[in-house]
C-alpha cells in the first residue's frame, strides 16, 4: 500500500514511515476495508516503521502484509 504513493516498487519502500506516508497509508486502509481507521495518538505513534505498522494492523484485525 505504501508503494502506491510516489509510484514505488514495494522493495523501494524504506523501513521508516514518515507522516505523509502514514496519512497515505491510513487512507488506503480505509478505502480497502471500507471503514474509518479509528486509532488514538498512542497507536499512531507506533506506526513510524513498516514493522510497527504491520504489528498495529495485525492487532486491529487487518489483513497480513497490508503495509507493504
Amino acid at each position, binding site marked *: 500500500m505504501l508503494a502506491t504513493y510516489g509510484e*514505488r516498487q514495494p522493495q523501494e519502500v524504506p523501513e521508516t514511515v*514518515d507522516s*505523509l506516508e502514514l*496519512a497515505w497509508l*491510513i487512507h488506503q486502509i*480505509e*478505502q480497502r476495508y471500507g471503514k474509518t481507521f479509528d486509532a488514538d495518538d498512542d497507536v*499512531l505513534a507506533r506506526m513510524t516503521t513498516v514493522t510497527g505498522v504491520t504489528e498495529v494492523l495485525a492487532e486491529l484485525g487487518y489483513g497480513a502484509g497490508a503495509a507493504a
Partner: protein
Amino acid sequence: MVPAGINIPTDPEWVDEVLLAGPADQVCLVLDGPVDRATLRRLVAERQAVLTGAGLRAGGSVALCLPPSPAFITNLLAAWRTGARAVLLDHRLTAFEVDQALDRLAPQFLVSVASSSGGALRAFQDVREAVTVRPDGQPSDTPHALIQLSSGSTGPSKSIGRTASDLIAELDRYLKIDGVPRGGERIVSLASMVHVLGLVGGLLYGLHAGVQLVLPERMTAEAILAAVAAGPEPTTLLGVPFHIELLAAVADPPRLPQLTGMTTGGELVRAQVHDAFVDRYGIRLGNMYGMTELGVIATDLFGVNRPAVTPAPGMTIREQDGEIHIAMENSPYVGLVDPARWSDGWLHTKDAGSVDATTGLVRVKGRRDSQVSIGGLKVDLSEVEHTLAGLPGVTGAVVVFGKAIEAYVMLEEPADLDRVQGQLTERVAAYKRPRAWHVVDRLPRTATGKLVRDQSVLATERKEQTRP
C-alpha cells in the same frame, strides 16, 4: 535586566490594524473550536502580558519553537504587538539544531513546549508553553519582525528576515491576486503555519482579509473533507502537492458544493494526479510559486497556464543566465552578505527557469543547488551530507534524492552503521534524514576528484561493489 533594543521602524500597532481588527463576534480561526476576534484579541493580550512580564520589550527578540497551535498564533502576535522580533524555529528540529540556531541568532527569550497533547497526523496541537530567559541574548539588531531559517546551517546567509512592511506588502499582493479567497469565505489550511505559505497565505492573510482559517482535526483525507463540509461558506484548500495526491486518491468523495478550489505551493504534481483531482472534485487546482524570502511571487490559481505562473502584482521577475531573479530592494539575509544570493537589488532564487518576453509568464524548472522539497519542507542535501560526513567513523558520504533522501557512506568499520545513524538522529531533524542507507567501500569521483552525485552512477557502483 534586559537591555532595550533599537526602535523597530514599523509601529507595533500594525498588528491591531492589519491583523486583529474586525467585528468582535467574527469567527477568524477554527482549530479545536471557533475563535472569534474578541477572544483572539484577549488571548494575544494575555500572552503579551506574560512576555513583557518576563522582560520582553520593543526592539527585543524572542524565538518561538512551537508546533502549529493556538499557542504559536498568540505568542507570535503578542511578540509583534510588543514590537519585538520573532524568530521561528521548526518544532521538528532536534535539540542540537535548535541550540545551533539559538547560538547564532541570540534571542533574549525562547518560547517552547512545556507539555502538549496531540501526536501523529494532528494538524495542530494543544500546547502549554514555557518562556525561558536567555541572559546572553541580544535585542534585535535589524528592523525585521520575522526571522526564519532556510534549510542549511553550513553556508552563510541562511537566516531570512522580513520586516512588518514586507509582510503587509505580501498581504496586499494576496488581496490583488484573482482567485484568492475573499472576506467571508474560508480557507481550510493543510500547509504548516510555521512556514511561509501556511503562515502568510493562510493565517495572516485570513486575519487580514476576514477569511476564516480552518485547520482539520487530523491530516487524513477524511478529516480534511470533513473540515470543508463543516461550513457553508465558499472554501479553498491550501496545501502542498502531497495533499493533492491524498485527495485525488479518494475514490468517492462526498459532494462539496462549497469547495471552490485548491491552491498549493511547491513543485507541480504529475499531470495524471492533477487531472484525477480536477476530475474528482470538479474545482480549480491552482499553483503558487513562493519563497520564504518574499512569500508569494507568482501564481496560476486557475490552472490555465500550467506549468507556467503569472508574476503577482508588484513582482518584477527576470531571467539571468537561466536563473530566476526577483527585484528586491534590500537583502533579506541577516548576518553575512552573500552576493550569490542577493546583489544590486535582485534576489537570486537559485531556481532554474525562464521568463517569456511577450507574456511575462514564468517557468520554474527546478533547483540549481542541492535543495529538495520533502512534503513541502525544504531540505538542503548538502547540509545533511556535511553533517553526516563530519561524524566520527565516517570517511566519506554522498546524500542524494530520488524518491526519498538516500545516503551512500564509507565507514571505518562497516558494523558502525547503527551508531552513525544514531548520531545523525541527534543532529538532524527526522524529515531531513536519509530513508535509505548504502554502505560502500568507495564513492565514485570525477576525473578532477569531485564526488559524483549522479544516482545511476552511485547505484551501479554499489552493485559492482556488492558483487562477489
